[in-house]
């Protein structure tokens, strides 16, 4: 498994990008046909799968997931702001000419959006604090980010905000249909290759536990012992000399999975407690 830089030679861009959202990104296909990459641009040669998840590989997740999460959170916030602005302009016949802001269900929907937004802000603030101040091991943070819990939740919130945020009520006060565009944009996120099922599917691939029985992976098993035996980063040129089929380092999916699942469970626990507290208020 390699991470590398490719040259333009032996490379073809196929314009396939015509999607329901995120259209401006132009994420067309790239076909590599014998593209030559010199050794000096080979960043890593590592075993496939979690066995090769060194700090560089996990750094990809550690950077991608929080930044994606913040992008979708901002999208949700924009949808909320558009909804609030829209219902203050749109008038209601049923309410005797008052604006839709007086509609109880609209007020309830906006309150739900704000509750969700505050919960998101707390989660993001906590994550940034851990990233910057407490200097937790990046490997662990990457495992947490890998779960994509926050990005998925934000996408759900964005959709809910678009839906609850008076999509139809805004249409006639918003000329460019921005809210609808945001709705399609966040909906497109469901079609990206990576998703929150990866952590659980990884557990099944490891063969240690069937799906839904991850708890025992966290509490006991070889993964707990092996967490202390994570390998050093395979730097060049030593890594390049590692031929296919060579002995794998003493780490495996079992070493990583408990952290991912623990983080996922903590997220669920935290979210449920917040929800119970809100319901009891």
């Amino acid at each position: 498994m390699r991470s590398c830089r490719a040259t333009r030679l032996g490379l073809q861009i196929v314009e396939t990008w015509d999607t329901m959202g995120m259209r401006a990104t132009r994420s067309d296909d790239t076909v590599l046909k014998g593209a030559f990459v010199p050794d000096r641009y080979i960043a890593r040669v590592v075993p496939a799968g979690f066995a090769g998840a060194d700090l560089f590989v996990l750094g990809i997740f550690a950077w991608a997931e929080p930044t994606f999460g913040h992008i979708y959170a901002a999208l949700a916030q924009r949808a909320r702001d558009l909804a609030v602005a829209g219902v203050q302009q749109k008038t209601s016949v049923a309410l005797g000419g008052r604006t839709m802001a007086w509609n109880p269900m609209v007020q309830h929907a906006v309150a739900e959006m704000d509750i969700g937004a505050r919960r998101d802000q707390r989660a993001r603030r906590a994550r940034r604090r851990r990233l910057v101040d407490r200097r937790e091991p990046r490997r662990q943070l990457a495992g947490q980010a890998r779960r994509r819990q926050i990005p998925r939740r934000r996408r759900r919130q964005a959709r809910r905000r678009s839906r609850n945020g008076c999509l139809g009520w805004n249409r006639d006060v918003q000329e460019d249909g921005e809210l609808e565009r945001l709705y399609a944009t966040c909906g497109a996120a469901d079609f990206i290759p990576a998703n929150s099922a990866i952590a659980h599917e990884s557990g099944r691939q490891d063969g240690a536990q069937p799906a839904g029985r991850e708890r025992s992976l966290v509490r006991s098993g070889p993964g707990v012992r092996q967490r202390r035996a994570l390998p050093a980063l395979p730097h060049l040129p030593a890594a390049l000399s590692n031929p296919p089929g060579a002995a794998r380092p003493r780490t495996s999916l079992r070493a990583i999975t408990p952290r991912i699942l623990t983080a996922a469970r903590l997220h669920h626990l935290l979210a449920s407690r917040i929800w119970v507290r809100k319901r009891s208020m």
Partner: protein
Amino acid sequence: MAVIDQTASILSTDLLARVASRAAAYDRDNRFFQEDFDELKAAGYLLVGVPKAFGGGGLNLAEICKLQATLAYAAPATALAVNMHLCWTGIAADLHRGGDHSLDWLLKEAAAGEVFAAGHGERGNDLPVLLSSATAERVSGGYRFNGHKIFGSLTPVWTRLGTRMRWT
């Protein structure tokens, strides 16, 4: 929390307003955000994660998250696509700060104006990054890559593709 808010200095209100005003047309025409990209590049946004020693902004992950949220509020697609480049430079910067200089070449090239895209997505690969359906063949002085990558973003402008292959 030691998070520096550099939003004002890099993403000015005027720039964000222009970016927001173009978003609808990009989406309607299914067109790359070229004008946004040119403005962001001129403002130094592509270098925010590059260490100062390499001529960049030296921002860390938490600071870039805040910047990206600000940009995404104006234009989500623009922020998402630029994110690919920022992630590569951020990872290289983290390794550099940790004493691993194996990706310093990436930081130097980013500072020189190269644009990095992410070639992780593959059809039929539900464990991207960690596994790959594309292949690499060892040849003299390097490797020959064969594969089909999807969801790369920035295709009209990227000059470097960070991707992964399975050594066969």
